[in-house]
């Protein structure tokens, strides 16, 4: 599997660490309460199909958001997490 790092270009999957659905970027407000945080951290759409998830390009240190398909493994795009897209 190959994934495009917006900095480094297309790279082998072995260069990346995975961190799940990009929903994780939408952290609730500090006072949102336990139940909001529990849902945020644990519940997932877990789609069979198009998804958007977080990957860390270990050698360059960039967290990226990748558009991907969980059934075909097609990778259709990626952006830097810094850009704030969930």
């Amino acid at each position, binding site marked *: 599997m190959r994934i495009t790092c917006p*900095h*480094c*270009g297309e*790279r*082998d999957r*072995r*260069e990346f660490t995975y961190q799940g659905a990009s929903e994780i970027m939408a952290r609730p407000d500090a006072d949102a309460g336990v139940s909001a945080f529990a849902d945020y951290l644990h519940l997932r759409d877990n789609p069979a199909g198009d998804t958007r998830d977080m990957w860390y*390009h*270990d*050698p*360059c*240190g*960039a967290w990226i958001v990748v558009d991907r398909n969980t059934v075909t493994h097609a990778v259709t795009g990626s952006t*830097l997490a810094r850009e704030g897209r969930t």
Partner: protein
Amino acid sequence: MVKLIAQTPCEGQLPMTIGDVTLTEVVIQTAWNVAPFAGKEADVSKALEAQSGVGFPAANRMLTKAGSRSIWVGAGRALVQCDGLPELSGLAAVTEQGDAIAAVRLDGPAAEATLARLVPLDLRVSTFKRGHTARSFVGHMAASVTRVGAEAFEVMVMRSMARTLVHELEEAAKGLAARA
């Protein structure tokens, strides 16, 4: 007064020639990680160029001039090798890294094929030209790989992994040489 004695990361291990590749240690005198603060990229590049002759490199590139080099080493970071600590206060985080890195140079017709045993990168000269650099892996080690000549590369890993780096390059070169 006592004096501390400096050692290089690959002390006593290099150089060596195996088949068509020669491995030599690149001794780093001084180097800094330069990471511009938000919105300061252009200012940093200008200031760097004025001080060292090389500006802030584009992603995946190395700039060289006289004795100075700046090598892109990751998102918003460059490794700057020059005389004297760059004065960039308020513009960038400057962090000493001259002792953090083990660097080995590969020269010879088999240099590319040796690295192809270890590095998951497209190193064909048509795509990875002189002055191109990449953050990637050498075996299991995070590394910077830079093409410094038609048949020459420089590889940088963490200092503590110097022995593994030399060993893996040596093994790759041996297997390759045995085919000849």
